[in-house]
């Protein structure tokens, strides 16, 4: 029975070994000092126990040298731990450029994954080995947390915001996925698996799940919700061009600039008046309540992938969406 009891997680990502090395370093230093302190306490308690001729010396009051020693020495060790820890942490903050993108939506009490190429999964994530995978995560309701112990990655998943992390799996296998931010009744049930496969097998799995890429789905939504009516990239366009927008700086009407990332796109669709692009009128209606998180991810994927010349052609017969009734006013009139 004891043979089956794991005492240490697997190292299944490029990150895992780094975390473990740092951990073992700190354990080694602190165990040594703790052991020293324990041995000293036991030794003193025995050697100086209350009896005649035990070398009792109540004159001792302190020692500046010792105080300085055991203040400064720990300080140096702590600085090493801090710097090392920061470096390991930074490593997962920015993903490599060639990372494969996966979108994750957490909700009570399940994980929904969407691959770039459109495949959807629930509570399972298939990834190829040896390939960097960038995760973009959000929540539909409360705060969750995406945790894969064997990869040593963990990130809170917030509603209304996109979080990013990445990993690169190094070993084929199946690994646990947990939610590790308490989220209600079935928090303990919000678990899943990450299945790491050889590249060839992964490609095979992908094609067996073929659905049409996320970007393609997004393009369908772009037409369905009639975004094309205003964002048509032609002479009658009533809204800014979206081609090549993602990642660029956008100038706003109040003089500020903002980078067009996932959060910006999401906000622009749900709350179009929050940031008005310089030189354009605020006529975009809000799609809050109409577009859910998964559709949002597809639209974002579409806009991300939109190269110059790729905007769909506007169909003359489609009617524009109803213009927002308060478009001429920024606030309501004074009494």
């Amino acid at each position, binding site marked *: 029975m004891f043979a089956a009891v794991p005492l240490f997680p697997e190292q299944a990502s490029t990150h895992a070994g780094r975390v473990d090395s740092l951990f073992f370093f700190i354990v080694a230093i602190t165990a040594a000092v703790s052991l020293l302190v324990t041995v000293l306490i036991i030794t003193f308690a025995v050697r100086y126990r209350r009896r005649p001729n035990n070398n009792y010396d109540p004159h001792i009051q302190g020692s500046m040298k010792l105080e300085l020693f055991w203040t400064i020495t720990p300080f140096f060790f702590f600085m090493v731990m801090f710097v090392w820890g920061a470096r390991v942490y930074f490593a997962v903050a920015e993903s490599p450029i060639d990372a494969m993108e996966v979108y994750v939506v957490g909700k009570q009490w399940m994980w929904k994954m969407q691959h770039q190429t459109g495949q959807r999964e629930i509570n399972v994530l298939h990834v190829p080995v040896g390939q960097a995978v960038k995760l973009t995560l959000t929540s539909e309701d409360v705060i969750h947390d995406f945790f894969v112990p064997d990869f040593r990655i963990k990130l809170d998943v917030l509603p209304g915001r996109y979080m990013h992390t990445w990993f690169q799996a190094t070993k084929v296998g199946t690994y646990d996925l947990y939610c590790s931010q*308490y989220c209600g009744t079935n928090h303990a049930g919000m678990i899943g698996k990450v299945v790491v496969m050889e590249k060839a097998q992964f490609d095979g799995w992908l094609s067996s799940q073929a659905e049409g890429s996320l970007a393609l789905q997004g393009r369908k939504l772009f037409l369905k919700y009639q975004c094309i009516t205003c964002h048509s990239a032609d002479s009658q366009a009533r809204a800014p061009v979206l081609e090549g927008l993602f990642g660029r700086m956008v100038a706003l009407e109040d003089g500020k600039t903002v980078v067009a990332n996932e959060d910006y796109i999401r906000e622009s669709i749900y709350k179009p008046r929050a940031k008005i692009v310089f030189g354009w009128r605020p006529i975009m209606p809000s799609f809050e309540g109409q577009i859910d998180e998964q559709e949002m991810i597809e639209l974002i994927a579409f806009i991300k992938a939109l190269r110059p010349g790729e905007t769909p052609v506007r169909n003359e017969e489609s009617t524009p969406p109803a213009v927002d009734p308060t478009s001429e006013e920024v606030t309501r009139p004074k009494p």
Partner: protein
Amino acid sequence: MSTVLEQEPQAVPPAPESRRNYLNAAFGVKSWLLTTDHKRIAILYLASVTFMFFLGGAAATLIRLNLMTPQGDLVTADTYNKLFTMHGVIMVWFFLVPVIPNVLGNFFLPMMIGARDLALPKINLASWYVFMAGAAFTLWAILAGGVDTGWTFYTPFSSKSSHTNVIPTLIGIVISGFSSIFTGLNFVVTVHRMRAPGMTWGRLPLFIWSLYATSVILLLATPVLAIALTLVMVERFFQIGIFDPALGGDPLLFQHLFWFYSHPVVYVMVLPGMGIVSEIITCYSRKTIFGYQFVALASIAIAVLGFLVWAHHMFVAGQSVYSAMIFSALSYAVAIPSAIKVFNWTATLYKGSISLQTPMLFALGFIALFTIGGVTGLMLAALGVDMHVHDTYFIIAHFHFIMVGGSVMAYMGGLHYWWPKMTGRLYPEGWAKVAAMLIFFGFILTFLPQFVLGYLGMPRRYHAYPPKYQVLNAMSSAGASILAVGYLFPFTYLLWSLGYGKRSGPNPWKATGLEWQTPSPPPTDNFETTPIVTTGPYNYLQQALTDVEENEIGDQLRAPGPPV
């Protein structure tokens, strides 16, 4: 009749019945419920927090029982979630925060500085009533359906998603916060204004220094908690999005406000325990503390730095990496004064004359377990490691090592140490040693496996878990049962000693300190005449020289020389 060799505390023949002390100064329920005597108020608190401790412990028992099996179906998921919330809320706010300050601090702070009472006795009594009011609200919320948000009340779950008695619980906690504020205020003012003649800051016992630092934290941090929890109540009641992203709010703002209080409060929970350890180590080594100024100032440093590290609870919550770095560095800084204390306590034992009475066993146990808890804190301060173990059983093990292996052990030590003074009775030493062993080893079996579980990846607040974690969970639950028995021991024999224990004289441990210069139990006004202080605390050198003269033991002591 006193010798340096004496192991047994002094017992005395029964005192004449007519001697008045704070216990028999007046009888009747009203004399207790309307008392302004700090010692009686301490006893009132003792009763209340002991009750809350066993209530929180009952929740823990059910939790550990449920976790014996991977399916975790002893109770439903909802019940389990309510149990760990109840355990956290009760243990943090209704046991750990008040226990040492309001029981041992209330009783001994005035005595140790030579005062007749605290500066504001009526505020002291009010703090107990406010505490009870907060406890009543919270208990009612728990019994009338429970609350399932976790003691951390993270939004938007607590403000939007939970269907349980969140608001009454929060009201209870906010009310009890005022009890903390009253206590903190009282202690700070007392230490500033009520010291006996000759009791300079440099002569204060270290327990007082630690209570002072604790009180400063209570004063400055608790109000922020009140606001954080009140805003959650407002959001929940009015459905307005302060912390709700759908309405423009930010859930991280709650976390910042919450942890701005809740990190300093962990120092509230551990600093008084450290003070007790200083008192005990010196007494049972019969030596002054090694490095008095350093230990005293370390308490202040911990209090100050403790206010600057709160976001180390949020390394994976969504703050910027630069912000995380700053908090990581500061978290290492706050570890240094704690390390200084551990080294100084150890050095105090060197060339001491050590007796392993029960209080000393608890104090040494504190040093061992607090050190383990503290060094795991160093692991958590490292951003790269914390990312892996945050919100797992590693964290649970870390803070239980400090809170239970640390604070509760220190409290047990202090309770035993001062029990003869408070009650006039000696506890039974044999049973007490057994209890200390049960508690120490039971604790280690309970919580050491949880470090392994956490690094393996078992998240916290899970009522069920993958079967591969069962062996470690079963070990932990087994340890918890031993720990539970261990705690029942002192509950039993301390009560027993009230009626049947050997009577104690004024100073059974032959300790220095003003509290030992009065009868046991003390009279209502503590001192016949206001003491005049002429030496520092822990003047065991003087005591030892006196012992040598009295007993002609010979040149056990070296000739006086310069300090090491």
